[in-house]
């Protein structure tokens, strides 16, 4: 309803900005309503509801970008805000070395929504709490076989609605419901402790909880934590083969392929915050991995957290083949970076709120599937480690030197999965990691994640995933 009321304001803001001297203008209404419930060690916390509605106006004037946003939705104020955005751009233009232009991507006129069976509006606090109590029933009081003195369970239901209009003719209306779960679990066995952070989520309605097997998954994770504490032994070190699970394949794809292939990072725009990239503008076509290294980002996967068929610049979003057969094939682009590359945008521009400018974001980043079964992949390994889940991870700001510390991991000997091993560490360069890919399974799985970028920071919902990926000849450490 609010979006309908605001449409005229948005369209008037674009007109006002143009008459104030903008050569390009866009306005984005965004209305987000989210409800969350938390159980801490089985105790209900206050229910939480948040709604945010406002308008963000972005312009180009004298070759510079200006952005202004407010939640005071009065016609006079919004009109003044459009003028302000133009004024900001003009005032900063003297500090411009190269004028900012947008490419000629086709302007989309479309209304889209993520499919939902049971409307997200039905997710009241009672429903959210019931799901969490179902989880608590399975893992509280040692019921999953291990003491969990620290249990933080949060379930949220959010509806994001947008109306976007720009001076190139784009008009987009979107409805994006999401269900997201976050759990922080601390297990104790004697003096030893293990910790696992679980994030699950999809776009859709209340059916998401069953579709992702949320309750069962959390229980399985807790049982595994108990096994880690009771049975894990020292991992092999030295040179081994490594099988990365879908979870590990996904985080590696996100961190060391998706991020360094964001064109704004490649061009230096995130230099002071999230950093630049080991890749440069002329790196397209560079061989970075084995022929088996294939990584993509696809915003058109139904139910995914990164589902965005039209981006926040009014461009139809396409699947991006980031690494194709070991070669840097494509960057994530918005209309400004694609203009610099002489290309058309592939629709990677997103904003998480009306008060944040759209920037280049991943959607669902994953290793492409291969043709092995998981069993066949493991059979290929004579001496190695199967990384199932990870805890600590990080990567440098050029996205070249990364580290993943496993929580659940197993030895592999002569093609058979063996004992559980404790905290093996994969600390490796991007080139070495993707250069070591020998084979991939057919088994595709995805995890929900929140990707951080931008200033002020924007946490964007994404999926990471892939199949089991076999890396050969890897030097492994232990924590």
């Amino acid at each position: 309803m609010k979006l309908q009321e605001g449409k005229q304001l948005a369209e008037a803001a674009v007109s006002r900005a143009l008459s104030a001297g903008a050569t390009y203008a866009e306005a984005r209404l965004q209305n987000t309503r989210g409800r969350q419930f938390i159980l801490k060690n089985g105790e209900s916390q206050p229910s939480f509801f948040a709604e945010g509605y406002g308008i963000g106006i972005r312009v180009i004037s004298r070759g510079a970008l200006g952005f202004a946003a407010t939640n005071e939705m009065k016609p006079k104020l919004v009109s003044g805000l459009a003028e302000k955005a133009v004024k900001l751009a003009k005032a900063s233009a003297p500090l411009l070395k190269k004028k900012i232009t947008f490419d000629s991507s086709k302007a989309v006129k479309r209304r889209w929504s993520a499919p939902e069976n049971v409307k997200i509006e039905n997710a009241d606090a009672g429903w959210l709490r019931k799901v969490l109590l179902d989880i608590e029933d399975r893992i509280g009081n040692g019921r999953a076989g291990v003491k969990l003195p620290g249990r933080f369970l949060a379930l949220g239901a959010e509806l994001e609605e947008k109306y976007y209009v720009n001076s190139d003719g784009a008009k987009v209306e979107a409805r994006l419901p999401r269900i997201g779960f976050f759990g922080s679990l601390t297990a104790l066995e004697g003096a030893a402790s293990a910790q696992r952070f679980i994030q699950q989520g999809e776009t859709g309605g209340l059916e998401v909880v069953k579709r992702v097997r949320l309750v069962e998954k959390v229980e399985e994770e807790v049982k595994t934590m108990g096994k880690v504490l009771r049975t894990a032994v020292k991992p092999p070190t030295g040179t081994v083969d490594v099988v990365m699970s879908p979870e590990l394949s996904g985080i590696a794809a996100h961190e060391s392929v998706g991020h360094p292939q964001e064109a704004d990072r490649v061009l230096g725009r995130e230099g002071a915050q999230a950093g630049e990239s080991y890749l440069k503008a002329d790196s397209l076509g560079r061989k970075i991995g084995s022929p088996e290294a294939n990584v993509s980002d696809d915003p058109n996967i139904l139910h995914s957290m990164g589902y965005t068929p039209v981006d926040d610049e009014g461009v139809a979003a396409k699947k991006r083949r980031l690494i194709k057969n070991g070669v840097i094939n494509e960057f994530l682009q918005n209309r400004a970076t694609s203009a610099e590359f002489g290309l058309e945008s592939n629709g990677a521009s997103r904003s998480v709120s009306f008060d944040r400018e759209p920037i280049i974001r991943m959607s669902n980043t994953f290793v492409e599937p291969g043709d092995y079964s998981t069993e066949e992949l493991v059979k290929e390994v004579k001496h190695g480690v199967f990384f199932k889940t990870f805890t600590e991870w990080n990567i440098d700001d050029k996205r070249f030197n990364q580290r993943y510390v496993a929580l659940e991991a197993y030895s592999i000997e002569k093609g058979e999965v063996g004992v559980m091993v404790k905290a093996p560490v994969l600390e490796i360069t991007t080139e070495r990691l993707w250069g070591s890919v020998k084979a991939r399974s057919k088994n595709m799985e995805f995890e929900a994640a929140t990707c951080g970028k931008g200033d002020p920071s924007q946490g964007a919902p994404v999926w990471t995933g892939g199949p089991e990926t076999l890396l050969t000849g890897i030097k492994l450490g232990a924590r």
Partner: protein
Amino acid sequence: MDLGDLNEDAVSTARKLGAEDSIALTARVNDRMIRFANSSVTTANQVDEAELMVYLAKDRKRAIASTSNLDSANVKSFVRDLFASLKGLPESEYVPLPDRKVKYRPSTLGFDRKLVDVGEELPELAKTAISASLAAGGKRSAGVIDAATVSYAILTSTGTDGSDARTSITLNIRSFAEKDASGHGLSCSSTLSGFDPEEAGRRAGTDAKKMRGASEPEAGAYQVLLSPTVAANIVETVGSAASAFSVDAGTSFLTEKLGKNVAAESFSLTDHGTVKGGLGGRIFDDEGTQTKSIPIIQKGELRTYLHNLTTAEKWKTKSTGSAGLVSPHGWNYEVGAGDSSYDEMVREMKKGIILTSNWYTRFKNYRTGEFSTVPRDGAYLVEHGKVTKPLKGMRAGDDLQRMFSSIRLLSKHREWIEWWEVDTPTLCPWLLVDGVKITRAYE
């Protein structure tokens, strides 16, 4: 839109509906920003927004909600909907609001009227930083200047009311001299007169130049000299661990350590609701409790957790004025100064590494405090008290208690730090720590 009127609308509506406790807390933000990369402006932004947060309790049932739709009629219906939602809720941990009326007047600490109107000056300030970096040896710079004014007002059903306001201006600049050579500079101030973009730019450019030809260190244990920027990033995780909510949730290495030594005797950490120079905080917390200075760690001993009313009741103590309605948190951290100069600290190092900036601090286990972080920008090897060469491509790992217990020296000089990697403003010295593990990619 008067913040006090909105609060009055919310609390009076709640009272009429029969809420036992209600709190209305409004915040209005005016944020002005300029960003640049490759020494060229990339965008200029301004955000004006206001938000109302409402807390209601009845029959031990509690709900919190926030809205940015602040018309008076909408606020009333918003509170009515929130009150109606209480019926379907379970009882939760509940402590009534204290039966006292406190009238708060805005603190003058942390507010500079001259910063309220800063906006058109931002391009010129950015130019100053970029020019200083260039003069010091940086070839190109990326950065952001952010000027913010935040006003708060609170009203509770027990009659506590008042307002407060904060201003801040921060610059984060990174300069690049060649492929892997970069330097970082910050200037963070609550006043315009305390803002020094030239010095921040000079530092970034100087380190960028000095980092040319950097190589990877050997993996091993080193004495590590952490700049205020790096130290503040790690200190902030100690502050988070001091929240009673983190302790309850199993995500604190300070669990079961009240009254015990958790750091070297030279280390003290205090949280201030308001403090001279502090870029954050206010005189009241989210429950209307007066904020104050809370010694979290004194001479290495853990003195208290940070509490709101609910966690304080559970721990049989008093609120520390740190609410967050759900989770208590710090406002402005201060690490006590030491008595060493930077040069003395470097001379103290036999085999050490100086780190000037870092990012991506991640934990293997918050309960044990095991973490690693990735240094970036200026990093230098020190051998027998002398800086010998620039370093790159490494990772520092430790556990928090071991690290803070292994502090050898702290500097006299301290700086306020708030940037992309430090959310809670922190006044921090240089820290010299023994035995930090340095690793690099195995291949």
